[in-house]
C-alpha cells in the first residue's frame, strides 16, 4: 500500500513538470501583448512599454521566462500579479473559498443524489422513479447558468430569502444557493448512476441469498445493495470533486464568489502568465491528490480491488 502511494507520488512529478511547461507555453503563445491591453484604447509610448516589458521579463525569450518562473516556484515564489499582489496570496485567499463551496456542493449532491437514486432504483417504474428521472433529465439538459440565473432571481430578488451574491468573506449560509446550483447537474448524474447500479445489483445472486437467509430489507439495502452499487458513483464523485475544486468559473461569476474560478478567469483575460500558470499548477496538484484518494477509496468499498506492492 505505502509502496503504491509512493509510486503514485513519483508519477506525479513528470505530470507536474509537463503541465506547467505546457500551460506556460500556451499562455506565452497567446497572441497579443497583455501589457498593451493595460493601456486600454490608448497607445502607450514605446519607451514606457519597453520598461514594463523588462519589469515582467516579457522581453526575454520563452525558455528564459519559463526558467525564471520555475526558479521562483522552487523557492516558493509564484510571481506577482499586475496589481502587485503576490500570487501566493491570491492562491491563499481564493482556494479556501472554492474548497468550502466545493465541499458543500459535494455534500449536497452526494446525499441527495444517492438517496434519490437508491429509492428510484428500489422502486423501479413507480411514480417516484418516473418523476425523479424527469427532474434529472431537466437538470442535465439545462445549462448551469440558466439554473444559476433562475435561482438568483427567484430566491434572491423575487422572494428575497437568499442573498443575490456572495459577500467578500463568503460565509457558509450565503454559499448554500451557489452550492446547490453547482450540485444540481452532478446530482442528476448521480441519481441516474445510482439508480442503474442499484437495479443491477438487486438482481444479483448474493442479494437473493441475503434475503433468503432471512435478513431484513433494512439490512440488505444499505449493506448489500448500496455498498456494492457505489463504485461507479465514487468514480464520478472523485472526478466531479476535482472539477469543483478547480473552480466553477460560470457559477462563481454569476454569484460573485471570490474564489478560484473568478480569479483565474480575470487572470486569463488580462494575460497574466505567472498567475495563470500558478493557479493551474496548484489545480493539477489537487487533481492528482484527489485521484489518488479515489483510487484508495475503491479498496475500501470493494476488498477485491487491491493495490499490491
Amino acid at each position, binding site marked *: 500500500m505505502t509502496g503504491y502511494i509512493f509510486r503514485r507520488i513519483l508519477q506525479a512529478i513528470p505530470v507536474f513538470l509537463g503541465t506547467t511547461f505546457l500551460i506556460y507555453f500556451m499562455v506565452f503563445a497567446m497572441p497579443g501583448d497583455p501589457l498593451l491591453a493595460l*493601456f486600454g484604447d490608448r497607445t502607450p509610448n514605446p519607451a514606457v512599454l519597453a520598461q514594463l516589458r523588462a519589469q515582467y521579463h516579457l522581453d526575454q525569450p520563452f525558455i528564459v521566462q519559463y526558467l525564471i518562473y520555475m526558479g521562483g516556484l522552487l523557492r516558493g515564489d509564484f510571481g506577482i500579479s499586475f*496589481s502587485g499582489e503576490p500570487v501566493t496570496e491570491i492562491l491563499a485567499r481564493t482556494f479556501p473559498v472554492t474548497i468550502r463551496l466545493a465541499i458543500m456542493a459535494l455534500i449536497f449532491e452526494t446525499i441527495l443524489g444517492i438517496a434519490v437514486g437508491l429509492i428510484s432504483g428500489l422502486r423501479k417504474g413507480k411514480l417516484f422513479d418516473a418523476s425523479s428521472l424527469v427532474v434529472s433529465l431537466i437538470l442535465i439538459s439545462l445549462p448551469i447558468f440558466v439554473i444559476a440565473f433562475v435561482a438568483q432571481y427567484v430566491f434572491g430578488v423575487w422572494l*428575497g430569502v437568499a442573498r443575490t451574491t456572495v459577500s467578500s468573506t463568503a460565509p457558509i449560509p450565503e454559499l448554500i444557493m451557489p452550492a446547490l446550483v453547482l450540485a444540481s447537474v452532478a446530482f442528476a448524474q448521480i441519481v441516474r448512476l445510482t439508480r442503474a447500479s442499484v437495479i443491477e445489483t438487486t438482481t444479483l445472486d448474493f442479494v437473493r441469498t441475503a434475503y433468503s437467509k432471512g435478513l431484513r430489507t433494512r439490512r440488505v439495502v444499505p449493506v448489500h445493495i448500496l455498498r456494492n452499487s457505489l463504485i461507479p458513483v465514487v468514480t464520478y464523485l472523485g472526478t466531479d470533486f476535482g472539477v469543483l475544486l478547480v473552480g466553477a468559473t460560470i457559477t462563481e461569476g454569476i454569484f460573485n464568489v471570490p474564489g478560484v474560478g473568478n480569479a483565474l478567469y480575470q487572470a486569463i483575460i488580462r494575460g497574466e502568465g505567472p498567475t495563470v500558470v500558478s493557479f493551474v499548477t496548484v489545480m493539477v496538484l489537487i487533481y492528482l491528490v484527489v485521484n489518488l484518494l479515489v483510487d484508495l477509496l475503491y479498496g475500501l468499498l470493494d476488498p477485491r480491488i487491491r493495490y499490491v506492492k
Partner: protein
Amino acid sequence: MRIKRLGVAAIALAAASALTLSGCASGGSNDTAATTKADSTAIITANGSEPQNPLIPTNTNETGGGKILDSIFAGLVYYDEKGAPHNDVAESITTDDNITYTVKIKPGQKFTNGEPVTANSFVDAWNYGALLSNAQLSSYFFEDIEGFSYDKDSKLTGLKVVDDNTFTIKLKSALADFPLRLGYSAFYPLPASAFDDMKAFGENPVGNGPYKLAGDGAWKHNAKIDLVVNPDYDGGRKAKNGGLTFVFYADQGAAYSDLLGGNLDVLDALPDSAFGTYKSDLGDRAVNQPAAIFQSFTIPSDTSNYSNPDAFKHFVGEEGQLRRQALSMAINRPEITKVIFQDTRTPASDFTSPVIDGWSDSLEGADVLKFNPDKAKELWAQADKISPWSGSFKIAYNADGGHQGWVDAVCNSIKNVLNIDAAGKPYPTFAEARTLITDRKIETAFRTGWQADYPGLFNFLGPLYATNAGSNDGDYSNPEFDALLKKGSSESDLDAANADFQKAQEILLKDLPAIPLWYSNVTGGYGEKVQDVHFGWNSVPLYYEITKS
C-alpha cells in the same frame, strides 16, 4: 427516514455555521463603526472592479482603481457634475502666457497620516510619475512639462518649488487647457512616506481626499475595498455619508442582481442583458445619460507604416475621402443605437462628447454623419470612377468586449446601402487586436474608442489625430489641423480655444481619419434607500453627495 435525518443534520450544520459567521460579521462592522463619525454612519455600497494596478495615482488608468483614487485623494482641482473645474487643494492657478503657471495651495491641509500637503507633495509625486524607469501607465500626462523625456530618466525641470505653499510649472509649449487637466488622478499629490516603499503604499494608499481607507488591509483583493470619511478633508467634496464600500464584480450581471436584491446602492454600468428591462425594473431610479466616451472605427490615413498598405489602397487620396464619406453616410446610426443598444448610445455629431464644454451638433460638414443612402451611393459611384472597388470591407474588433452586435449592424447597413460585401472581423482578445493595431499589422478598418481623462475638447483631438500623436493609430496627419490645435492651445480664453478646436473638427469631418459612430451613455441605477445620486461627466457617480436613509 434516512433523508429526513440527513436533512435535519444539514440544517443544523448550516445554522451552526451561520452563528459562527454572523459572529464574525458583527465583529467586522464594529471595527468600521469605531473609525466612523457617530453622526453619519450610513455606508454606501457601490459597484467596482478589482484595480488592475497598485493604487498609485500615476499608475492607474482604468475606472476600477480610478474611482477609488478619486475618493481618497484631492488634487489641485476637482470636476463638478458638468465637468467644470473647481479648486480643491489649490487656492489659485494663474498664468500670463499659458506656458508658466503659478500654483498656490491652501495652507494647513493634511494627508490622513498627519503629513502636511505642501508644494513638494505635488512636485515629488509628479516627478515620480514622469520618470521613465518608473514605467508609470499615466506618465504621458507629464510630457508637456519642461524636462520630460521618453529617452532617458530626467527630472521635470519645469517644476520649481517657491515655498511650502507655492510652486511653478513651466510647459514646453503653450497649453490653454492645462489647468483643466489638473483634476485627473495622475496629478494627485503623494505624502513623503510613499516614496520609501511605493509597493506597500499602493496596497494601503494614504491620501488627502474626502475618504480614506478603513485601516490597513481595507483593500480585500478581488472582493471589495472599504472607505470611511476623512474628517480632515476640507474641500468642496465633503462626504454626506459615512463611508463607501466598493464591491468588486467580475460580471456586471451579478452587480445588477445585487442592485435588484437590495445588496448594492449604486450601480454605474448595466450589463448588456439588462438594457431591455432596466427601465421597468428600476423606474425613476434608472440612469441613462451621455458620457465622455466616443466610439468610432478607423481606416488608416497614411498607410506607409503599415505592413500591408495594399489592403487600404482604396482609402487614400481623393478616392479615399469619397469612400470614407460614403461609408459614414451609409450607416444608420439612430436605428442601430435604438435597436442594438436600446438607446443607451447617442448618435455622434462630432468627434468629442456632448458632456464636454464646447461640444456642438452643428459643425460645418456634420451632415456626413447623417444617414443618407442616396448621397452615399452617389459618392461611392464617384470613387468607383477613380478606381473601381474590389474586395470586401471589414471592421476588426475584439470579441471579448461585446462589440459583435453593433459591428454586424454597421456592416449590414453598409452592405445594404452600397451593395458591397461588408463584415466584421473578430479577434479573440482585446490584447490581440490592440497589438495588431499598435504594430500596424492590421489589414482592415478597426474599432476605436476614446474615454476622456479630463473634460476638454482637446483631449478628444490632440492625442488621437495630431501628427505623430501617441494614440493616432491611423497615422493621420494634416498640417492645417495641427495648426488649429496649436492655435487653440495658446488662446488665453477657453471659449476662443473651443472655437479653434471646433474649426479643427470641421477638417476632421472632411478627412474622416476615423468614422464617428456614437457616444456611449452611462447607464446605471440606484437603490430605494439612497438619495441625491448624480452621475458626473466622467460616468462616475458623485459618491460624496449620496445620502442614505
